[in-house]
């Protein structure tokens, strides 16, 4: 089958024809169905990490992530079945139970759309990680990190080929970090800021934006910027 072949499938009872290789996310868009996404970004490779885009496909035991599953002829897809809605709502509630989403407007909108409650898991352990402020350009506030992996991807083969950051830790302890927990300046980072640009939650933020948020005046920020790094005493 070549990629120029066309495929017809059924989404929410409507017949849709798309080129082979089209994802369910794209196919649903054709009938005006805007599937929610968190980890998906137009500039990064889709990885189906967050599972918010799941849809129900007839004959499949579990819900399918629309961002990576490709359309197949005669597929029957439900984008808003009860199971789908319940799953999306739970994902949002779990995220809200442990992560600071105060600067993730898109996720907050989804919370409203899905009537998700941040209080559903009151006993959940919240992420409590000190803000990493180790360079002149941006800060890393991993309390706000939803581990969408976009920053890691743009640092690697989706843009920069620099490989300064990756996942570290396991399970609940998983965090984005540098190798051996080096500071950012000590890593291979080129400070392109692409990671900051794709961060959906404000976990990565330009320092100047942070200062303005803190009410520091532009004049004072500028004076701060003229500070110099002192040399460590050699032993």
């Amino acid at each position: 089958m070549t990629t120029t072949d066309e495929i017809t499938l059924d989404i929410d009872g409507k017949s849709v024809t798309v080129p082979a290789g089209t994802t369910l996310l794209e196919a649903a868009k054709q009938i005006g169905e805007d599937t929610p996404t968190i980890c998906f970004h137009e500039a990064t490779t889709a990885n189906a990490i967050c599972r918010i885009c799941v849809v129900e496909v007839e004959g499949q035991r579990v819900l399918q992530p629309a961002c990576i599953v490709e359309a197949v002829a005669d597929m029957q897809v439900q984008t808003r079945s009860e199971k789908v809605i319940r799953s999306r709502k739970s994902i949002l509630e779990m995220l809200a139970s442990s992560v600071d989403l105060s600067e993730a407007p898109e996720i907050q909108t989804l919370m409203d759309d899905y009537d998700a409650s941040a209080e559903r898991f009151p006993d959940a352990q919240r992420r409590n990680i000190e803000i990493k402020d180790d360079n002149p350009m941006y800060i890393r506030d991993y309390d706000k990190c939803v581990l969408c992996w976009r920053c890691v991807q743009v640092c690697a083969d989706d843009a920069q080929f620099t490989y300064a950051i990756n996942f570290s830790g396991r399970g609940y302890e998983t965090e984005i970090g540098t190798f051996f927990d080096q500071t950012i300046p000590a890593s291979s980072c080129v400070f392109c800021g692409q990671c900051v640009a794709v961060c959906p939650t404000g976990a990565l933020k330009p320092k100047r934006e942070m200062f303005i948020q803190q009410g520091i005046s532009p004049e004072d920020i500028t004076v701060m910027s003229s500070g110099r790094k002192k040399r460590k005493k050699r032993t």
Partner: protein
Amino acid sequence: MIKTDRVVSTTCPYCGVGCNLQLHVKDDYIFKVTSPFDSVVNQGNLCVKGRFGYDYIYHPKRVTTPLIRKTLQKAGERTQAFDRDEWRDVTWDEALDMIADRMVEIYQRDGSKAMSVYCCAKATNEENYLMQKMYRTLFRTNNVDHCTRLCHAGSVVALQQALGSSAMSNTSSEVIHNDVFMVVGSNTSDNHPIIALQMKAAIKKYGAKMIVIDPRRIEMVDFAEMWLPLKPGTNVPLLSAMAHVIVKEELGDLEFVKNRTEGYDDYVESLEKFTPEYAEEISGVPADDIRKAARLYAKAENAAIYWGMGISQLSHGTASALALIHLAFLTGHIGREGTGLNPLRGQNNVQGASDMGAMPFHYPGYMLVTDEKNAQKWETAWNIEPGGLNRELGLTTTEILSHAHPGGIRSLFIMGENPMMSEPNLNETRKHMQQLEFIVSQDLFINESAAFADVFLPAAPFAEKDGTFTNTDRRVQRVRQAHAPRGDSRADWEIISDLAQRIESRLGRATAKWDYSNPEEIYAEMASVVPDFAGITYERIKDVGLQYPVWDKDHPGTPFLFAESFPRGRGKFTLLDYIPSVEPVDDEYPFILTTGRLLEHWHGGTMTRHSKLNELYPEARVDIHPADAEIHGISNGMAVRLSSRRGEIVLRATVTEKTTVGLVFLPWHFHEAAANLLTIDALDPQAKIPEFKVCAVQVFPARDEDLPNPDIVVERGRY
């Protein structure tokens, strides 16, 4: 979350890639920069300078009021004044009237030959057009140049001679259509970071193969199929040996040679001596690698060549660029999508400033000043009496300063350039600057050159004005104001318009028109005379820039050049000889010094050293190979004294295999250890470009207390 007042779409002010920026503004302060992911130029990617390097705009040392020196400066006794106490704050009227009076006095006394101007590859097209217009119409001089002379002049002259056009053939993102491409003398990942990303993607995702020709083991080598580490300054024998192999092994495209070029037979004869073994002896690159590289390039389906200063900044820069051009002619790797010759332009608008005639040999649109028809065309456009414009070639950047003496150049207007950092052999440059009778600096900061001026005019940076920049792949893009100029500073185009009117009325000339109400009017005036830009209007480039030539209002622009023919007709082969660099190494000065740039900094440092970028890389470092370091007792981070026949500096050494044995590398951004104190002022005979890439130096250990700032040390994993 911050509620943004506005988001302004504009073009990056750093390198020639021309990345699209969105400036996020709150209370007249840019707090964040992003880039649209659907941008055709940079696909949402930026480098550290574009993303974070705009804070110089708000630096407390930025000058935002016109200044006049308190002490009258005399030719021969001129001094530098970095301290604001040595300057008097004045009104625009006082500053501009004083300039007009002094310049008209000098012009009326000594004539056109006494007047000169450095235009600015950072300023907009409109501003460069106006500046050369002012000097050509009012002072009737062609002593108009800018820093293109110091970067790609060798490439420009070679391309003009061989093809008749000096811009990049391709759109840089076309590199993904290459199966093979060569990167020659370009540290692309540091100097054109976004083009480097496109190259890396071409390799990792589209299967392209890259040949890197560079004396240093630059980052691109990590991605290369082959690396040819030539001795600096040996491009001509190395590239000619590749041509020799292509001819001998009959790998060329003889059909293309026959239909599109001239001078082939004589050229082939001249290649006889350039055997790979001969080239190995001179360049140090193994003959077999030269053969392999020649075969790889010649046998490719679609191959392109990208190059940087390693080709042009030599006393034989023109010949080096010609040697590259010949490879494309021989193989027909030009004139199709993805194939061509691509000098990567350094500055955001060096292409544009050249296009706008900010050069001593050309009016806008590369119309030779010596051609009677061109002069007449511009006399009509600028309302000048027939025969009024000067028909003689002007002086180039380096020549302007070397002619600073009584009977030669007496006054220099510097718009945004910094010759006291960027010229070779700075101790000599200093003497020339001191000889000038009157200097005006139009800049943001009192940099090393502005400190010599009589009058300082505070200009506006890119984010405070409107206009256009032309990037390295000939794309004319909009620059937009994010907030008003700070303090009393003004956009360069407004300053020039105002000053020109004051000079014109003192000279009593018929008006050439200066009363523009916006840059769009200036662009329209230029585009009505230069055919390449006839189809470009601000309305058409509102969202996406157009690649010139754009012949009329319906023309879609030109993504790649030379599909049918070359502007001069046939591509011309030139016979080349190997001419060694001017200063060979010897026992006294046993190392070759090559200069270049760093990712975090920009040229003379006027912008980036007044930015947080400086915290990322706060000191000059010289790269030295571990084998050389061991012999000379130098360890990583140690202070060393680096000297040439012209000067010496003290700085820390980085011991690294990024450089090769016998070669030291030095960035030229740092005034406290200025690389150009050491470089040689030998010039290419045709292009007049200085030989920044090769001179002889000596390295000795020094003491920490001899360092300009012993407390400051760069600590970065990348270096």
